[in-house]
């Protein structure tokens, strides 16, 4: 009798057990993403703190900061470290997303060794609320090292890497790919503690502007017509 009930719900035995059809439970505190549709798809219902999150971007500037901003705004004044961003970050844009300029730290480094050292020290100290680390090429053992360092604290730690890194193995329990889409971004789930999801998730994320007075319209650009490509009877 008892055996059969246990077999019916084995996920109730231990928090780290889950069925292949279910989302896993998070072992650590999760930060709400601010997007209900995305939170519902993540184990634990948000960005997990104290572990490596792999975000794979099609290009720099496809909405990654707008996606993370609601979670970063919940950190309550703890420092947010931007380590080796691809371009100079604009404090006004981040302030508009709810991040106070006094909590923003921009670290530049001269080499990847220094950057990895800085990331590891920030994670080990646990004094910062979040660490966003841009590094195009990173070896598997470095990733594992950073993941271990992150587990000591509760820092929200995101590695932002180009999309072609998706083929390489990574110790991150959560790996998402981000692509810009019409009127928002598309999030692909490469790896998560939960069922495989092939269809990307669409999140509406428009750049903030009062200047867009018109609703956005999906209007394809007219296809350029090379000379002599149209049939004469159509033109005539």
């Amino acid at each position: 009798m008892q055996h059969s009930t246990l077999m019916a719900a084995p996920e109730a035995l231990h928090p780290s057990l889950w069925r292949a059809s279910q989302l896993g439970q998070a072992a650590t505190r999760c930060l709400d993403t601010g997007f209900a549709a995305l939170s519902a798809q993540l184990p634990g219902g948000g960005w997990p703190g104290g572990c490596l999150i792999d975000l794979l971007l099609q290009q720099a500037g496809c909405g990654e900061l707008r996606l993370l901003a609601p979670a970063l705004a919940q950190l309550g004044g703890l420092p947010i470290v931007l380590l080796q961003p691809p371009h100079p970050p604009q404090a006004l844009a981040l302030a508009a997303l709810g991040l106070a300029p006094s909590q923003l730290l921009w670290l530049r480094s001269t080499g990847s060794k220094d950057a990895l050292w800085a990331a590891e020290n920030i994670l080990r100290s646990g004094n910062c609320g979040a660490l966003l680390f841009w590094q195009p090429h990173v070896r598997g053992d470095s990733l594992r090292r950073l993941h271990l360092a992150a587990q000591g604290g509760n820092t929200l730690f995101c590695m932002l890497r180009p999309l072609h890194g998706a083929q390489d193995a990574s110790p991150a329990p959560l790996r998402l790919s981000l692509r810009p889409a019409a009127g928002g971004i598309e999030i692909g789930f490469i790896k998560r503690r939960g069922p495989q999801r092939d269809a990307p998730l669409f999140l509406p994320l428009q750049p903030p502007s009062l200047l867009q007075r018109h609703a956005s319209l999906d209007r394809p650009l007219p296809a350029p017509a090379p000379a002599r490509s149209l049939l004469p009877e159509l033109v005539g």
Partner: protein
Amino acid sequence: MALSPLAGQAGIKPGMRRGGALMLAPQARLFERSPTLEAQALQEVALALLQFSPLVAHGEEATLLVDAGASLRLFGGVRALCRQIATSLRALGYTAVLSCAPTARGAWLLANAGTEASARRVLGMASLARRLDRLPVGLLPPARPYLDWFEGIGCRTLGQLRRLPRPGLQRRCGAALLSMLDDAHGHGTELFVWIAAPPTFRASLELFDRVENAEALLFGARRLLQQMTGWLCARQLAVERIALLLAHERGLQARAPTVVELALGEAVWRDEHLLRLLKERLAQLVLEAPVIGLTLEALQVLPMAPPSETLFPEPGGTPEDRQRLMELLVARLGSNNVLQAAPLADYRPETANRWLPLAGKSSGKLPASDLPPGLPGMPRPGWLLAQPIALLMREHRPFYGSPLKMVSVAERIEAGWWGQSQARDYFIAEGRDHAHYWVYRERIAGSGEEAAPRWFLHGLFA
């Protein structure tokens, strides 16, 4: 006369002649015993021991007496204290025999007797008396001239000495022997001249060899830091600025010592943080010449502020912890690479997006950031390119990877007539891959409408 364990393995014994020792081990290095160097080493150790108690005194025959009775609880008991003292001595590069007893003379006797470690640690008066009774008479310096006589009357241990009639003993051997014995058993009052810490700190160290690798200097720096910790604790000070001077060998021309200066935002009196900072600084240092000596100076000190403990730990550590992390990052990456946002009230985006090096305590607080009103509605991209990129034109459209489509009306920014004048119309543009860009059209005064507009990419909406 002393020899290293390595020399002992080679077969050298104390009392050998110089030639005999060199024959057994030709590579052996012989040193003359130098009383000044020994006194200096003892002074170094005394300075380092001041971190455990302000009451440190010199004893006879190269011993140091530390009165730690009042602070046993602070260090977590006698064993923990002994362990900490041993660690600190090892960091200094010395070995020592540690003993502890309720009386200073008792501890001195136990240390000089050279019994095993557990027998040298005595807490009760009764057990101290038992231990002392078993020690040989010759340990007491005033008894040494009369050793033959003691031998003759069959008095070999301190216990037997104590049972001799006191008046006769005093008449034969003097009062010093009896008073020393009384001190050891706590019957007399012991008086010491406590070592006073000097008013300023400056410690030097001569290295054993010429050091050409900056990281190898860390060992020497650790020895000096140990001494500074003792000095700071004794004078109840915390250090804000220290300098490490690396003395170079005098070649053909004299070379000024290299100075490594550390300035701290938060004054400290423990050496772990200083050691980590020095490690990063030394790792970056390029030595121009081999180093033969180190000098550590405390340039700026403050009264020590006791740590204030909160009942519940704050998330993300205390502000002091955070400050320490920032100092560590600045030490490795350089102060120009650790930047904090300090937006400026200006219409021009490049000027408004101001990032300043993280301010230490000395340069004051960062200026308050000015945020314009109505910020949430302003189209400002997350990435602002360091240098605007001139865009190609294809079919009268700006082109960046794909033709760009304007999705907003223009925002005119025209400012800076007093310096770098700007007159631009900013648009949000969308590429064919639906990424959003911040582009502007340069407005050139004087050019007519027919002049081809020049487009630039200035930001990416991240």
